[in-house]
């Protein structure tokens, strides 16, 4: 199953007032089952657009996405999304937010008690049992993002899609969450596609890093396999020549080949 998830010659265009804008052109990407792939590129290069395409939130003008042998058609809980701004519903508690997703996916097959177990297990996974009855505005940004991850994982998706999930967090919180994500990933072996603009994050977490050129008509410029043993320790990796080599490779791509587009950031 080397191409469990396949983005097949996808072109994404938007109709704007100035006419058709081709955001992403001819993107080809294969992701194996259980693989962790990061998509990296400058702001505005269309990496989130590719993620939204896989999520089914937008449609391709040409090409498409195939998951487990079936062409995707719109959004679905089998492709859970961890949104950049967590997108928790502010009127629901931590438990309520997770439960909404769990109920939708397993409500038809599982008993009420089992649904509750699933919610609590997911919240436990991200270490938030103590905040289970809190509302989103009562917890920190890092905790909100954990709830977003718990909500997505609780759905037992075929693919976990993460759109710069730690982008808005401070460096320390981000590091902690990256470590928990790696640990969870080690246990659950999810297939993950993550969008990021953080080079260290991409190398630390991924099996492969997909580098995107700048838009308009952005496409995949280079794909780098990260052959570092797991579990990975960020402190030890800092002195690892291979790690620094991968970092340098990505930085070179981003800074030499692909200068930030005018008006980005």
């Amino acid at each position, binding site marked *: 199953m080397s191409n469990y998830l396949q983005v097949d010659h996808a072109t994404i265009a938007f109709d704007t007032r100035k006419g058709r804008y081709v955001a992403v052109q001819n993107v080809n990407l294969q992701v194996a089952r259980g693989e962790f792939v990061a998509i990296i590129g400058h702001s505005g290069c269309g990496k989130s657009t590719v993620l939204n395409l896989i999520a089914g939130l937008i449609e391709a003008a040409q090409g498409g996405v195939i998951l487990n042998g079936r062409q995707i058609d719109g959004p679905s809980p089998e492709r859970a999304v961890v*949104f950049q701004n967590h997108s928790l519903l502010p009127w629901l508690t931590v438990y309520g937010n997770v439960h909404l997703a769990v109920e939708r996916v397993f409500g038809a097959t599982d008993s009420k008690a089992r649904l509750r177990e699933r919610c609590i297990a997911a919240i436990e996974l991200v270490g938030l049992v103590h905040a289970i009855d809190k509302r989103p505005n009562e917890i920190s940004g890092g905790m909100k993002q954990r709830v977003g991850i718990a909500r997505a994982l609780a759905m037992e998706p075929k693919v976990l899609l993460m759109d710069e999930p730690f982008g808005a967090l401070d460096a320390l919180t981000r590091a902690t969450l990256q470590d928990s994500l790696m640990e969870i990933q080690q246990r659950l072996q999810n297939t993950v596609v993550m969008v990021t603009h953080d080079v260290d994050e991409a190398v630390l977490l991924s099996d492969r890093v997909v580098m995107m050129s700048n838009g308009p008509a952005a496409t995949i410029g280079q794909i780098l396999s990260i052959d570092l043993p797991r579990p990975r320790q960020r402190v030890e990796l800092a002195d690892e020549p291979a790690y620094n080599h991968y970092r340098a490779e990505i930085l070179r791509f981003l800074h030499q080949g692909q200068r930030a587009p005018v008006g980005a950031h």
Partner: protein
Amino acid sequence: MALIRTVAAALRTALAWLLPPLFGLAALVGVWALIAAGSSNLPSPGKTFASAVEVFAHPFYDQGPNDQGIGWNLLKSVGRVAEGFGLAALVGIPLGFLLGRYALLNRAVSPIISLLRPVSPLAWLPIGLAVFQKANPAAIFVIFICSIWPMIINTALGVSSVPQDYLNVARVLRLSEWKVLTRILLPASIPYVLSGAKLALGIAWLAIVASEMLTGGVGIGFWLWDEWNSLNMEHILIAILVIGVVGLLIEHGMTLIAKRYDYRQS
């Protein structure tokens, strides 16, 4: 010592908080007394106060349909507002939801709303009288029609400005339209609906006094007009004060409710 200092500090804060409004009120009464001293028609504050003591001594006397205590009149007016507003909410909130959810429908209906909304509430009174042939339902109809616009408009605004993020969550979960309504649109738009309700009640309270003046019966507006016919200026001033106080209470009550149900501040 420490206790005395705390009490003194608390007293000082209370005074600083109370003094400006008290000063404003005193100034108003002062200006009123000055004008009343030079006018033969405007009763003085003292005379009005004496009259108010009498009026409020028996607020719930009942001597036939045209002579009832101020309490009955007030309750009748508040009841009409409640009925008219309740009906407006019953029709306006679901309609607002539809308009907020379906852009096509919104485009079909919003010109009608824009056309009818600026019409003075009293302009609807003849239509109410013609349709219902009775004063009381006509007054309720006026309240209904003037409070329905803010309900529709605010609800529609609330529904259409639900953040796309929340709707994306619904899309990824493939929630049914019913679940989207009950779990996302409804809670997300409650603050808007409540601010629409607050606006609507404000307008309704303005309109009820005016329409009761025209329709008669029992009600604070009619009471005021009746006192004008018997040239009892003290009672007119009392009526104005009472109308103001009730309006203030409605406004404050709605603000409290809106705060209680606003998820944006916990």
